[in-house]
């Protein structure tokens, strides 16, 4: 028992120590960062947070942009993936296997390699600097995983259930709305969270599609963050930005830990 407790402690230190250090850094004055053990009269400050929050555009803007893109692409993904996975679960074994293989192939593709072609598409269709347009490639890139997860959820439902509903005279839409969707809602929730996390964290495409500073998403804004001055290494504001940028996700994980774990448990690997 003692060994387990020690392991848990080690695990927590491993995961949280870097973040704690960033938290500490974000409250230190610049002088204290360079000489951490010197005794300084004034060690703590909120300046870094002020400089990050008052920058132009304010940091909150990036969070809102990411939230918007994340929300929209999650919605789009589900809109496409739910019907697709339903039909995939009802398909014959051989044809569904072919499609599943194709999907797995797509899911395994390192999508970074697509950025040049996507940039050309954005240029050709004038999609640059639009957060709404950015949600489209995100939704497309999330399709394989979303369809695979949801297909498994649909396949787990007993076939008699739908037959019974059909006998009762419910139309396809009604069956979907009143029987199937409620039953797979846990799987939908966990897929939604995974897609949201992907869109929130995505970097290379946002980097090439968005150049307008008012429309940057969080990961790009972080990489591009302009310190208040060129003359010193702006680690204080960096750290403050890290902390502010992490808070929404930490909350998200805290609240949705259960569906995240259970979503993958529903059998992502059965295919």
């Amino acid at each position, binding site marked *: 028992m003692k060994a387990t407790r020690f392991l848990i402690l080690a695990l927590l230190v491993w995961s949280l120590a870097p973040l704690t250090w960033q938290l500490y850094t974000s409250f230190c004055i610049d002088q204290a960062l*360079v000489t951490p053990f010197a005794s300084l009269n004034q060690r703590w400050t909120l300046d870094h947070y002020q400089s990050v929050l008052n920058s132009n555009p304010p940091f909150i803007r990036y969070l809102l942009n990411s939230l918007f893109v994340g929300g929209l692409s999650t919605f789009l993904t589900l809109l496409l993936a739910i019907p697709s996975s339903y039909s995939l679960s009802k398909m014959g074994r051989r044809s569904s296997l072919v499609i599943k293989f194709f999907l797995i192939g797509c899911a395994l593709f390192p999508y970074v390699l697509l950025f040049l072609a996507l*940039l050309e598409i*954005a*240029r050709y269709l004038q999609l640059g*600097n639009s957060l709404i347009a950015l949600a489209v490639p995100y939704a497309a890139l999330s399709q394989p995983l979303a369809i695979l997860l949801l297909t498994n959820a649909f396949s787990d439902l007993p076939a008699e259930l739908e037959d019974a509903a059909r006998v009762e005279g419910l139309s396809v839409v009604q069956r979907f709305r009143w029987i199937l969707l409620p039953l797979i809602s846990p799987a939908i929730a966990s897929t939604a969270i995974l897609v949201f996390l992907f869109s929130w964290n995505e970097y290379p495409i946002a980097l090439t599609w968005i*150049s*307008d500073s008012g429309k940057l998403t969080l990961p790009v804004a972080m990489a591009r963050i*302009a310190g208040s001055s*060129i003359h010193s*290494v702006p680690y204080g504001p960096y750290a403050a930005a890290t902390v502010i940028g992490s808070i929404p996700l930490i909350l998200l994980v805290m609240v949705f830990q259960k569906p995240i774990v259970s979503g993958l448990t529903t059998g992502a690997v059965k295919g």
Partner: protein
Amino acid sequence: MFTIRKRSLILLTAAILFISSSLLCLSVLAKRPDNVSILMAAPFADSTSELVKIFNQKNRGRIHLEVIKGPLETEAISDLAISSLLLGNTPFDGLLMDVTWVPKYAKAGWLESLDNYFNEDDLNALAEGADEGNHYQGSLLRWPLNADIGLLYWRTDLMDEPPRTPQELESISQKLQNGGRIPYGYVWQGKQYEGLSCVFLEIIDGFGGEWFSPDSGRIGLDEPPGLDASEWLNHLIQTGVSPRAVTNFAESEALQSFKSGQAAFMRNWPYAWAELQKNDSQVRNKVGITTMVAEKGHQPAATLGSWGLSLLKGSAHPESTVEAFKFLTSEESQRYLYTKYGNTPTKAEIFNDQKLLENYPSLQSIGEALAYARSRPETPLYAQISVVLQRKLSSSLTGMTTPVEAMQQAERSTAQVLEAAGESP
């Protein structure tokens, strides 16, 4: 009671409607101001913010200038500018460009020529050195905002005279270090990035060589001066004159180290001067500036790192944009930018201003060094050949290859890059 209130409400609504519609008419009748936007790296966006306000006040109703604040690092802002240009629909009218971008942007067809906006007199008013790197294939494509050059900073409290040759720099450093007066001799930019190419250019020229000449297609890395330069930089780290960590130093790290009194020499740009005179600096009033060291018999070289304003193709208001350029680079603006932010001026007149020189003695040394300004190779392929050099230098500085091998490999890779692009050397 009720009717009165109702009537007054109607009156109020009518009044509001009347006023707003007449305002709308007026604003439509009056010429809408030209909206001009310029993308700048963060420090320049900050330093010009007051000037922009003045410009907008002066041109109220005619031109509205907006400066878009880009990221801090040169490479990050280049990525940003290029991706905005690739996305099409030029999102800004003007771009503050590093001197090395000019040929590439020109060749890609993104720049509008400025020949019609600036005349011979304007060009002649530029200080020697500041007039370099603004043309490509005969047309003026950029108007300089500042004239950054690489300088050698030295500690006046540790020595009477700055070193003139590489050997002197080393021996002074070692004497000071052995005497325990200072932990390190010389700090510079040894990280694998553009700054390392700037450092190297000064040394190879100081040894009498040339990195690459776009006109003749000759590469000088695998020649005695190139090899000497590479070996000398390596030697600095080996002998401890420069700290090991210099292989991860950019400008700000070098400045931090020098500012806290840990080194006798530093290579940096002119802006560092103002920073070293601040209250929290350990070396306040103990710093001199001069040109980089050079081998006996050769001229010192100062890498030109200037920033300038370019007009982008597709701008809706080219005249107004150039007007903004002229205001931002006027003598008055330059004086302000120099005294307040340490941005090196580009007009010859300012360097001869006796009153300014009295208050800012460093200006004289900067002006003298400016005469030794050297551009990095002016070719659209610059980014590629510079990356080749940085890569090989970095691997020699970190002990992965010998300095000689590094230069041989760099020479070969540079030739390959040129050949692949159809520019056979």
